[in-house]
């Protein structure tokens, strides 16, 4: 058996089922490890008591002979998911100390499946950011190089999994917040089709874009977690009414006409020329192409395609997402819950002071942008126009999918940047979202899988995008790649971090 922290979700399951280790043992080991790595800034909240109680309950279920895949598996939740037994902050001072009376559906499902939550993971405030430097508490850092960012907004989740503090974690992806940190930290993450996971209990940033997803060390681990997380929820009107999916079985389903040596035979992978601009960093391009080469060796065919409105995805997203956020964040007004200013002269003053004190700079920026683009006289030019372009971007993808099954390319234009670099110019960070935004706008499922290293020895991720509800196809391809390569097994553990 590997050292306890080296096991991924599937391996942990094996070890627990075969009684090589108990959940309590494993949980304690990870709690100790998390405590010893606080400088990574991965956790906002660690609850040993709650975790060990859940672990003990899981051990009882295992002893009773239950065989569910996730019983006793430790993980943690991005602090954007509300939890009844732990505080939820969304990385914001506005919710410091907030205790939700209910669990997010995704959390409840993972709890029911027997997972053991160690605590809440750091994130950019209200999921707004690409570096986890917008957390109101402290930044998360990249375990591969702690002078660099882990990516965002699910930076804490990525750091924890990459640093082997957890076998898996939940994240959320609105414009790339699972895929990009996964790429920056060399782990695997998947954002499913919009509507596959329930948003009930996920603090809303941009309602038409937010999706929950797992972050772990392999496609297989992601498949196990996603199966438990996903499914129709009557409390979320945007959740898709489909039967519960076994993504693990779908991942293992062999392709027709494929062989053991060529598991991806017949799979057409489209490479949009707009995802490989001249400006793409050479190290990223190199790693991505290496990954694509492996996929070819496994039988996939690479096809040139085009997503002509790729660049437009940036202004479209940065109009729609802030617009929805400006409305979603109105409820944080100091009246019912969360922070309220200590001193104020009247209602308006209370609102102003509460929100000025409770929200960080990036959140305020986006609320202002969002309010502006929805306001009278500007709605048609900005918001309405952006929604029309969004439809066209989605149509562009459909045109591609007539020529290919999956779309591939880089996740981000570079490897993780140095901490503090993004501070002067927020727009620079926005521009770096160029490859993940289009898939988000179209609501398509997307993954990031590690394909090697770039500048400074920092990880590079390959992005795979599938058509609606093709998570199985994505996971299958990623799994095939990971059976044939070792990139996903690399960890920064050998480096002091």
């Amino acid at each position, binding site marked *: 058996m590997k050292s306890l922290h080296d096991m991924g979700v599937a391996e942990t399951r094996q070890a627990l089922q075969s009684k090589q280790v108990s959940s309590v043992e494993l949980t304690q080991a990870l709690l100790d490890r998390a405590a010893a790595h606080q400088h990574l800034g991965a956790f906002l909240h660690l609850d040993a008591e709650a975790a060990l109680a859940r672990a003990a309950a899981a051990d009882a279920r295992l002893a009773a002979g239950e065989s569910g895949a996730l019983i006793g598996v430790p993980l943690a939740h991005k602090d954007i998911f509300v939890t009844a037994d732990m505080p939820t902050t969304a990385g914001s001072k506005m919710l410091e100390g907030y205790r939700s009376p209910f669990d997010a559906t995704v959390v409840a499902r993972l709890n029911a499946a027997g997972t053991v939550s160690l605590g809440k993971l750091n994130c950019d405030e209200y999921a707004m950011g690409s570096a986890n430097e917008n957390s109101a508490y402290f930044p998360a850092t990249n375990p591969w190089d702690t002078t660099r960012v882990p990516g965002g907004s699910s930076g804490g989740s990525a750091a924890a999994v990459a640093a082997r503090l957890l076998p898996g974690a939940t994240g959320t992806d609105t414009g790339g917040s699972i895929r990009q940190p996964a790429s920056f930290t060399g782990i695997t993450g998947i954002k499913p089709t919009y509507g596959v996971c329930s948003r009930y209990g996920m603090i809303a940033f941009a309602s038409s874009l937010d999706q929950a997803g797992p972050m772990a060390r392999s496609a297989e681990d992601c498949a196990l977690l996603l199966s438990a997380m996903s499914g129709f929820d009557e409390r979320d009107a*945007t959740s898709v009414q489909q039967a519960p999916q076994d993504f693990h079985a779908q991942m293992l389903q062999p392709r027709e006409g494929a062989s053991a040596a060529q598991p991806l035979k017949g799979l057409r992978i489209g490479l949009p020329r707009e995802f490989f601009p001249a400006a793409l960093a050479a190290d990223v391009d190199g790693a991505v192409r290496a990954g694509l080469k492996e996929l070819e060796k496994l039988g996939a065919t690479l096809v040139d395609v085009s997503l002509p409105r790729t660049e437009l995805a940036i202004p479209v997203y940065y109009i729609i997402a802030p617009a929805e956020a400006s409305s979603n964040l109105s409820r944080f007004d100091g009246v019912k819950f969360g922070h309220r200013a200590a001193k104020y002269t009247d209602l308006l003053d209370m609102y102003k002071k509460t929100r000025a004190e409770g929200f960080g700079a990036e959140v305020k920026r986006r609320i202002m942008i969002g309010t502006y683009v929805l306001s009278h006289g500007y709605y048609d030019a900005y918001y309405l126009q952006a929604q029309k372009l969004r439809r066209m971007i989605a149509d562009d993808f459909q045109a591609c999918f007539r020529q290919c099954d999956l779309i591939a390319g880089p996740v981000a234009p570079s490897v993780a940047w140095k901490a503090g670099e993004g501070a002067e110019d927020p727009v620079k960070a926005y521009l770096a979202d160029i490859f993940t935004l289009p898939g988000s706008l179209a609501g398509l499922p997307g993954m990031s899988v590690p394909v090697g290293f770039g500048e400074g020895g920092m990880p590079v991720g390959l992005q795979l995008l599938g058509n609606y509800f093709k998570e199985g196809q994505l996971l299958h391809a990623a799994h095939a790649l990971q059976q044939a390569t070792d990139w996903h097994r690399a960890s920064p553990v050998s480096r002091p971090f």
Partner: protein
Amino acid sequence: MANSKLVRGYEVVIGLENHVQLSTQSKIFSGSSTAFGAAPNTQASPVDLALPGTLPVLNRAAVERAIRFGLAVGAKVAPLSIFARKNYFYPDLPKGYQISQFEIPVVQGGQVEFFVGEERKTVRLTRAHLEEDAGKSLHEDYHGQTGIDLNRAGTPLLEIVSEPDMRSGAEAAEYAKTLHALVMWLGICDGNMQEGSFRCDVNVSVRRPGEPYGTRREIKNLNSFRYLLQAVDFEVNWQIDQIEDGLPIQQATVLFNPDTGETRAMRSKEDSADYRYFPDPDLPPLVIANDWVERVRGEMPELPAVMAARFQNEDGLPAYDAAMMTASLALARFYEAAKALGAQPKLVANWLMGEVSRRLNSEERSIESSPVSAAQLAALILRIQDGTVSNNAARQVFDSLWNAEGSDVDALIESKGLKQMSDTGELERILDEVLAANAKSVEEFRAGKEKAFNALVGQAMKATKGKANPTQVNELLKKKLG
């Protein structure tokens, strides 16, 4: 176009917006109860409180009620409509936005017909849309603070918007009453105005005939038809005063003070609010397929207009009477029950519009609580029809029934000795006596003085102690006088 409703030479233009609380068990976007009167904040779930992570889910029963309304007013039920967020900050609005409908409402068009006096009037509807109610702000009970009760937050509302087709306060009040009766008839609203189930906002403007529409002011939250009339009256005169003084009318929201009888503008900041409407991304478009509409149509009660037409065609009631009989479902049922027992439709209508209505109004009660039942009224009318009692006598019996001095019509007629004289021989004998005793009147009548005849009738009724059948007296006297 004839317009006799001008006020000081100005035409009054009125449109109404009514907020109707739909009588569903639970709220429009959450499962909380909508029952009135619970202790504050005991009917407010995490969704109603807008706790982080909560989401709205649409209540089908609210949609059904909207469909029913749309069908009843002959409107188009939109096959696809969109929920939109209306954004503004207020403590009784937990999310900081109200979920409503903006560009594409669920009900489009339609019309409402009613009578103002004897005149028939039609008001066109612009639209009706679904939205959620806000909570309540309670100022009185708290010193220097305001209490927020979110029980009401999320209650389903149907906002019904009329075209500015009304031309007087009276028309506006009748429209509101008709709409009020209709939503109760349809079973979509309990109509309890004290509890805020049915609220009226009135848009009023004035103009010289032929000129374009004037600037309107909106009188908000009127919860009685009497106040509506008073408010409109004051507002119209206030606006005319302004214009005559050369002052412009500023668009404003105004409140009516029942104690002073005046309307007063609220802070004008309210009116320039930009609500930044956009389609709510948490709710998919509302799709109403034809079969749903048809199912609702099939389950609807007979509409008042249809029933009124039936009363006209089958029972021979005049249009006005038929409209009166269908003012409420309970009244219509009362009418039909009495009719079914053999009472003449026109007589039933007369009694309901007359005696019954007068007493119900003065005692501020509704037909459902009438002490006289349909069966009792029918029995009484049958005794008029068969000549047993005169109308006058019947009124006395009715009195007794109303005051619960007795419950059986025949028993009351007997005990009060109100039976009309049926023996024509006896009557003729008395009439001969009357003519003999009133020779002067006879002479005057024969000389051409019509009034003398009435005097003789009066004498005859006196002589018979009111028990004679007036019609018979008339006939026989005429015969005797040649």
